[in-house]
């Protein structure tokens, strides 16, 4: 029996196909203006006996194709445990919300925090800033790591930070340094959310932003501990949903 998990995020749709707890296939597509089309495509290309949807757009699929849903909080808990069996804390910088999830020993969600409604401290903020500085998202983190001097961004608000970046650029500050400051600003925000919990190992950085080496390095520095990143961190939610679909316990 094959099970498919689809994680409809605000930026990307991720699909993960599993069988007997093992990973078979995965896909990723931009959410775009027609997420259902992308979902349908995944449903066709990765046929499964059971499907479970998660993520911001999960109810779309529930209405569209009567597919069961779980929240990304629960899906991340399951998915992160599949990567790291001793995971107790999950950090996720998503497209529009940033989450910290604490798990109990059994791997169930014990507590979670999410950012407020604004885009500060989210992946979207990072994306906007990368574009402003003329970086691709893929190179943004590694280029930031080459900064020599430390500068501070005074604002975390996307709108204000954007104008601050413009004025820093106008002052002739090297863009690597501005990039570093942006990364640091985001991590300060995520770390302060994480510090509301008693952090327990393993701490897993999940979601697409975990590919960014600068974010990971700064998190480790700020939280003073090792952070684990799986091989395909952006698939954490989709994998979790697929594993739940397989168990069909919900």
């Amino acid at each position, binding site marked *: 029996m094959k099970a498919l998990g689809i994680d409809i995020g605000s930026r990307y749709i991720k699909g993960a196909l599993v069988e007997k707890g093992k990973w078979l296939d995965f896909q990723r597509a931009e959410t775009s203006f027609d997420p259902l089309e992308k979902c349908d495509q995944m449903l066709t290309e990765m046929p499964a006996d059971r499907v479970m949807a998660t993520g*911001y757009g999960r*109810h779309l699929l529930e209405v569209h194709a009567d597919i069961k849903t*779980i*929240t*990304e*909080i*629960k899906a991340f808990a399951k998915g992160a445990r599949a990567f790291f069996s001793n995971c107790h804390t999950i950090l996720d910088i998503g497209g*529009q*919300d940033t989450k910290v999830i604490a798990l109990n020993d059994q791997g*169930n*969600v*014990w507590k*979670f925090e*999410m950012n*407020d*409604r604004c885009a500060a401290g989210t992946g979207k903020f990072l994306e906007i800033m990368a574009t402003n500085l003329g970086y691709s998202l893929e190179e943004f983190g590694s280029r930031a790591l080459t900064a020599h001097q430390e500068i501070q961004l005074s604002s975390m608000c996307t709108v204000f930070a954007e104008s601050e970046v413009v004025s820093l650029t106008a002052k002739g500050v090297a863009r690597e340094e501005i990039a570093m400051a942006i990364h640091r600003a985001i991590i300060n925000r995520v770390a302060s959310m994480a510090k509301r919990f008693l952090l327990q190992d393993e701490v897993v950085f999940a979601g697409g932003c975990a590919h960014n080496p600068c974010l990971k390095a700064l998190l480790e520095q700020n939280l003073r501990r090792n952070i684990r990143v799986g091989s395909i961190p952006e698939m954490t939610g989709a994998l979790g949903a697929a594993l739940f679909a397989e168990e069909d316990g919900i």
Partner: protein
Amino acid sequence: MADYTEMWRNLGLNLENHAGLLAVLNEGYKNIYLSQKGRPRGMEYFDFVISEVHGLRIKEITEAKQAGRKVVGTFCVYVPEEIVLAADGVCIGLCAGAEVGSDEAEKFIPRNTCALIKAFMGFKLAGLCPYIELTDLIVGETTCDGKKKAYEIFQNITGKVYVMEIPNMKNDESKRLWHGEVVKFKETVEAITKKTITVENLKRGASLANGKRRALQRLSRLRAADPAPISGLDALLINQVSFYDDPVRFTQMTDKLCAELEERIKQGFGVASKGARRVLISGSPMAIPNWKLHSIIEGAGAVVVGEESCVGERNFRDLLDENFSTVDEGLGKMAERYLEIDCACFTPNDERLENIKSMTQKLHADGVIHYALQFCTPYMMEAYKVEKALGRIPFMRLETDYSMEDVGQLKTRVEAFLEMVK
């Protein structure tokens, strides 16, 4: 609905804005309320009341005014309704539950003001609230800094604001202060209505207010049943309506509804299946038509079984002891009764923690969602103590306002919370 345009024009409402408000309200009501399954028949009355919220009820109050009765508007469950009723006045909890007139309100008050304060300013400034226009007296109170300062501005705008001083502690000095405030309020109401408060009419006022409270207490007790005989949305609506409906009729109709719910409980009939997750909401008031959180929670398959809120338990938990033989004695008992209310503006406020725990137990709630309006500092702050006091009972805090922009995020939080509660 009859055509009330003339009546609204005479009240000086902004007819265009007002038509827009009613259209949104009706649409929202249809989507949120009328789409619910298995509602008690007794809700038909409340559906009717809502459909006539700015119609028939306004007509009734206008007629009462023409007959010489005075209208007193309030914003807080600390204002002693008994006194208004004793003087044959009409007591109305004023509109403050929708995001309207924010632009107008922000000309007077800062952007970072709680949605409730912004709304009562907005309703008035945008010409949307017929109740405000009908009032002879608007009673404010010193519960939080935002309200306290907003009333000064509201007085400049309306010229009919009277402010009661609510102490911040519950020691002997505060009790004396509050008692004095109750006496002063009685004198103010007497002056406005040109009626003298006597033992007889004070007892009548007490009996009317207590009648309403008893009916609401009965409703609250019935919500302890599993399966829940009534949705949290419907129960919230009844609590909201209690602030502006005629008290005698309200009590009758609520009692009638409760009798129906008792029958449902006997038959094991509910609006959700037995074992559905049960949530207690605790925190800031939800003024009409703020149904946002309830609809999210119940939309996710759980049931709201109680509101530890001013629009809820704090409004009806305590009865006034009607056993008094002089006006002074009655006012004394009244001062005591009101000072029992566990508003977060008090320090310390440990009674509230006990009350939340006791409600959780009595209503068999599986978890508590702490609801604070954004910028409502007293409740936002108390959330910490509530969480500690609840120990192992699942708890989540939310901060939000009346806008719909965060509904997606709230849904995720609420659903994740319900997954945890299971």
